[in-house]
């Protein structure tokens, strides 16, 4: 395709015209709200997808757990301990244990467990060594399959019965010998959780919210960025726009602000949706586990959240617009932006590192800094210096990308959409030309 032989004399374009930026921004936004794909990906998915996914995942998990609970464990027993008829009675009378009398041999039982026809086998035997000298003592061995939920449940049930029986038996025997349990149960263990219900809720939100936030801002920017450049070219409206009296910087600024707004909006809407739905979804789950959590966002984290939305959306929009500039069709746009999209999601891994704090050094890494800042603001543990570094580093990264975009848009064939290739090809060609020139 065509590209200029030499850099043509630059046309003297004025800088930003904010009136034009406003007109272009409103047009982009109005059109976007009428586009199903953008509306779906940037507005509806943030509101409904993650709350729905959370609800679906936990409902599914509870359903599976409930199913396992109601299923009886099929257990084969090698040989009952003769001196412990009560233990035998407890196992046999347990409502969720069925004794499989048909399976006798150890090898047969193992095979049946592997096939899923049996859940566990208990073998009671006389213990070796010193333990064997104690009258009435026994050793129990449970054979099960860790890869099968039902088999694991069977092991847990048998283990619980035997351990309870052992405690009762020991207490009874020591009492019979005139020793009170308090005399031999010397060390006791107790737990005290200092975290309040709100702090525990903030901890869970801090783990979850930044990840969803980054994903949603990226998703929110994705389609608008592709549509704002490649979509215009594909529909044939790019040349129409270029023939208006809007300055090129105004066109770029209008589109950039629109893409950033969509990203920020998607992130903010998602946070609100998650906050509204997290309580009914998570709270019952934790209550079942014996913990009560309060899910509320600390008031102090709201401005940080807004700042994070602005910075992240600004960064993601700038990057995506830069890559999308080279696309001539929607498909090209999608494939050019996707690597950047994946790159943005990579820092989310940092959130999984236990005990990781936002330091001044980490605050220099785009996206990582914002996600960590967000997490710490939710848990009320934010330090001002790393936050300031985050602000400066993110603003710097945005400016750097916008400068690169301005440089790229000096090339006529990039603006007109006749350049065939990506950002990297253009930079390679341009750098080669520069090095030849020198």
């Amino acid at each position, binding site marked *: *395709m*065509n*590209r*200029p*032989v*030499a850099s*043509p*004399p*630059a*046309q*003297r*374009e*004025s800088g930003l015209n904010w009136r*034009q930026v406003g*007109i*272009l921004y409103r*047009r982009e936004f*109005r*059109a976007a709200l*009428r*586009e199903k794909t953008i509306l779906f990906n940037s507005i509806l998915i943030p509101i409904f997808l993650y709350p729905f996914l959370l609800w679906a995942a936990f409902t599914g998990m509870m359903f599976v757990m409930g199913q396992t609970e109601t299923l009886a464990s099929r257990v084969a027993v090698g040989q009952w301990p003769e001196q412990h008829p009560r233990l035998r009675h407890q196992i046999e009378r347990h409502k969720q244990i069925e004794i499989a009398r048909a399976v006798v041999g150890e090898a047969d039982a193992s095979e049946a467990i592997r096939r899923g026809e049996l859940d566990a086998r208990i073998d009671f035997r006389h213990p070796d060594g010193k333990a064997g000298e104690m009258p009435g003592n026994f050793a129990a061995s449970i054979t099960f399959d860790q890869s099968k939920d039902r088999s694991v449940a069977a092991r847990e049930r048998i283990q619980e019965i035997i351990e309870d029986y052992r405690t009762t038996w020991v207490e009874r025997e020591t009492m019979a010998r005139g020793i009170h349990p308090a005399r031999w149960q010397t060390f006791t263990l107790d737990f005290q959780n200092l975290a309040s219900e709100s702090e525990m809720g903030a901890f869970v939100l801090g783990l979850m919210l930044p990840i969803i936030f980054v994903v949603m801002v990226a998703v929110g920017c994705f389609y608008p960025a592709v549509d704002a450049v490649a979509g215009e070219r594909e*529909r*044939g*409206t790019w*040349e*129409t726009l*270029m*023939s*208006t*009296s*809007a*300055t090129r910087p105004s066109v770029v600024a209008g589109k950039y602000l629109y893409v950033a707004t969509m990203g920020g909006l998607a992130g903010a809407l998602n946070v609100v949706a998650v906050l509204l739905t997290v309580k009914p979804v998570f709270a019952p789950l934790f209550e079942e586990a014996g913990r009560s959590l309060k899910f509320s966002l600390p008031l102090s984290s709201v401005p940080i959240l807004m700042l994070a939305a602005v910075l992240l959306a600004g960064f993601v929009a700038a990057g995506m617009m830069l890559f999308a500039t080279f696309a001539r069709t929607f498909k090209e746009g999608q494939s050019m932006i996707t690597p950047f999209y994946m790159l943005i999601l990579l820092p989310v891994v940092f959130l999984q590192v236990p005990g990781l704090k936002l330091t001044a050094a980490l605050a220099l890494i785009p996206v990582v800094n914002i996600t960590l800042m967000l997490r710490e603001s939710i848990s009320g543990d934010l330090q001002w210096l790393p936050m300031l570094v985050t602000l400066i580093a993110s603003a710097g990264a945005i400016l750097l990308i916008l400068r690169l975009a301005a440089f790229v848009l000096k090339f*006529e064939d990039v603006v*007109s959409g006749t350049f065939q290739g990506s950002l990297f090809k253009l930079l390679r060609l341009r750098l080669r030309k520069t090095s030849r020139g020198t």
Partner: protein
Amino acid sequence: MNPPVIVNQLTKTFYDDSRGEVVAVNQISFACQAGQIFGLLGANGAGKTTTLRMLATILKPTGGTATLMGFDVSHQPEEVRRHLGFSSATTALYPRLTARETLEFFARINGCPPATVNERVNALISRFGIRDYADARVDRLSQGMKQKVAIARTVAHDPPVLIFDEPTVGLDVLNALEMQKVIAGFRDEGKTILFSTHIMSEAEKLCDRIAIVDQGRIHACDTLANLRLATGLRYLEDIFVHYIERARTTETR
């Protein structure tokens, strides 16, 4: 008084991966007067569109100069575009805006004073007969309706110069005739019109002056009557072939 459009030695060179350096437009010069239709007549790839795109400041000239209403295309592109309405087969409309929103957008972005935008848009809606579907989205309009909206958006800011690059391409006969009438109407209002086509009958019917373009050069530029006199041929088709063959023969020698 200077003509509204003056083109002097305008040149555009491209680099093509397979063909190397390509001179798309080669030192062409012409001028257009107000109240006239100036036609660029040439085969596909002759350089018509490149010339018009340079005048619309979509492409940057590699050499030469061009002014539009006294503004230089290389150095005052925004002023040029403010005084220009550009329409081509590749300038589509925003499908998700209504006809009215489209006209408002183009009026505003091209510098129409905000207080006069509504009045201007209503006037255009009446003039082009699009009242019945003014509030319908463009993507739901028929080809003929879209064409009317496209013309209306080209003149939304009432520019003194209009460029129509092959405006009837893809239109059926009735719509093409309608388009020709509209363009002739703009001339009667005193606008300066640049018009490119490869359809001889269209040029014959509409153009006050015709430039015959081939391989980036203008080989003849005059009124149809003078071209007939100069060649002794009656039909524009024959006149066109005469000049193209003469140019190519000269080049071969």
